[in-house]
């Protein structure tokens, strides 16, 4: 793609964004509030005052975003923390669960990929466990682990395990026969074969698995935190939903989206690093 094309694509993106904002503004702009009515009933119903409900206009959202971003690390007690702190809690949980999943998935994936027997023996289990929604594990986790924040990490672990595991196994199994044969002819030791032949060859596939995993983990953490509460961006969404404050909910959705994009970008970069041309 030439630089002219990049420029065009960028311009088009901006146009799309502006059109979306314009449509949103027109669809949500509210008539000016009349002066506060004298009627007592209307007053109790919150008429004439600014109610937090209703779909916000883009400018209201902008204002809320400015407020949140101006002071992202405030801490007003256990149930009211800044968006930065909430995000950090979520990222820490994802990092914990994801790291654990990778520590299990890659060695296990190697074993499965290298041994057709093991692959066939474990396949039914993987196929049954893989499609289970990670949140379905939550009640079981709470009951057995007896700690809600560890349960959250467990849910991340279980959801990021499968894509990484399956991709590792596939990548390892799909290493070109020729290369393995060459290694065999040269009488390379098994460990050396694993690290210097198979790992580099399977790395792009493994990274793809990790990239899918982190995406799913980020999807799941929001739902898990809405369920468990306490801290995190998911809790933030839940707490604002509790107040039926859509402006803050939309702001949180945008933050979640941007953060997800950043995570994906990082893994995309890592993936590029290990990709090779045959």
């Amino acid at each position, binding site marked *: 793609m030439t630089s002219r094309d990049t420029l065009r694509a960028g311009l088009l993106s901006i146009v799309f964004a502006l059109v979306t904002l314009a449509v949103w503004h027109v669809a949500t702009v509210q008539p000016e509030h009349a002066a506060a009515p004298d009627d007592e009933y209307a007053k*109790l119903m*919150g008429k004439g005052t600014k109610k937090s409900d209703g779909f916000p206009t883009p400018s209201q959202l902008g204002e809320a975003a400015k407020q949140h971003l101006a002071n992202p690390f405030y801490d007003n007690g*256990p*149930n009211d923390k800044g968006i930065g702190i909430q995000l950090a809690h979520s990222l820490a949980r994802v990092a914990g669960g994801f790291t654990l999943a990778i520590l299990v998935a890659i060695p296990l994936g190697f074993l499965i990929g290298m041994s057709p027997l093991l692959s066939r023996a474990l396949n039914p289990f993987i196929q049954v466990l893989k499609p289970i929604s990670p949140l379905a594990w939550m009640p079981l986790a709470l009951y057995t682990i007896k*700690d809600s924040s560890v349960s959250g990490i467990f849910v991340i672990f279980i959801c990021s395990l499968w894509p990484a595991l399956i991709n590792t196994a596939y990548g390892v199994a799909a290493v070109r026969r020729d290369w393995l044969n060459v290694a065999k002819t040269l009488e390379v030791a098994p460990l050396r074969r694993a690290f210097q032949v198979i790992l580099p060859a399977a790395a792009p596939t493994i990274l793809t698995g990790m990239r899918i995993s982190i995406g799913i983990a980020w999807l799941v953490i929001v739902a898990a935190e809405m369920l468990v509460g306490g801290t995190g961006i998911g809790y933030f969404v839940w*707490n604002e939903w*509790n107040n*039926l404050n859509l402006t803050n909910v939309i702001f949180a959705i945008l933050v979640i989206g941007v953060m997800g994009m950043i995570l994906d970008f990082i893994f995309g970069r890592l993936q590029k690093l290990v990709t090779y041309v045959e």
Partner: protein
Amino acid sequence: MSAFKNPFDPNLTLGATCNCGRHASQAEHDAAEFAGDDLADNSIETLNRRAIESAAMRALFPHDETRRRFIRAVGASTAMAAISSFIPFGALEAMAQEKQGSLEKKDLKIGFIPITCATPLIMADPLGFYKKQGLNVTLNKTAGWALIRDKMLNKEHDASHFLSPMPVAISLGLGSAAQPMNVATIQNINGQAIVLANKHKDKRDPKQWKGFKFGIPFDYSIHNMLLRYYVAEHGIDPDTDIQLRVTPPPELVANLRAGNIDGFLGPDPFNQRAVYDEVGFIHILSKEIWDGHPCCAFGVSSAFVKENPNTFAALYRSVLLAAQMARDPKNRPLIATVIAPANYLNQPVPLLEQVLTGKFADGLGQVRNVPDRVDFDPFPWQSMAVWMLTQMKRWGYIKGDVNYQKVAEQVFLATDARKRMAELDMKPPAANYAKFKVMGKEFDPTQPEKYLASFAIRKMA
């Protein structure tokens, strides 16, 4: 209350009748006084000192008239100085505090659901009731009742806001592993409502509700029991004619707006929130079903009570004093502003004011004024527990025989509550059981089986 009054006040009687003559009774006088008093002046230290001083003065001057004359003659400050010189008030005070014992555990985690039912235990944090007892409490907002249960079972929380039937259910092992739980105090009485979606404005007769879907906060909730009772009295079988869906309180309004449910019997502020957001109207208040019904409770596990008796006593005092303050209608607007921020309820203040003061829009165009829409009577009547057990049995949550009295007495700590309330001069009732009426029908706590047998609509194992 008179024990907490300044005994060096010549205009005060340290006795049983109202001392200013303007009030019908001493209780009323005290209520007016307490509300007028500055908050800081009612701190525990002041109350403690007052109680000791009053005791000493009463011992020195058995006749109130003598004390008054003495104080009038020499002046309050001279009298205080004179008497302090031979009675070591400071030391006595220290002793009184020491008698409370050292706290086994100071850092406590308490779970709560963001609803006005939990007002006493929530306001105790920002208003410093816990701190005054030497406790460092972290209030954890929790996402639903199942999680409240699990976090108590897992000991992640030391104490918790409960629906009052929950400790009964957990102690019996209903819907969870059995673990002895206790109700230390009731948090609120009344304060719930049946809310219907706006499209049902013409269906005010429960007989027209066949096929409706109702939200309830939890299976083991007074809401479930009251709703079942209410529709059954109108000839609707809650198990076959309508659908009951467990929905966490904050999600009730969103579900009503989305049309997933036709109505709910839920906790405030979500009843009022449905009105405020113009998605529903208040059909009836729960006090119209059973005036004075218990709703939420402040509970701890029996193990916690055993291991931390002094901490438990301090917690008890904090919550009881908070409840005492919350009972006074004059304090309600202040309380509404204190519990509204994002750290606690995360709701608009005008909304909470309507709930707490009882002057509210009903969603049908009327302004209603019901000062006892919600109240915070902390005494855990064991008769309430017996009633809950009859209803749990009526709807098949309990199968087989129940020893009503035994369970009620194990779970509802009425005797402890009486002792703690008496220490704080809060005039607890003398009995643990009382008769009451639910929709006009009398409940006799000594005859639970007979009461149960009198219902035509029920589900029996």
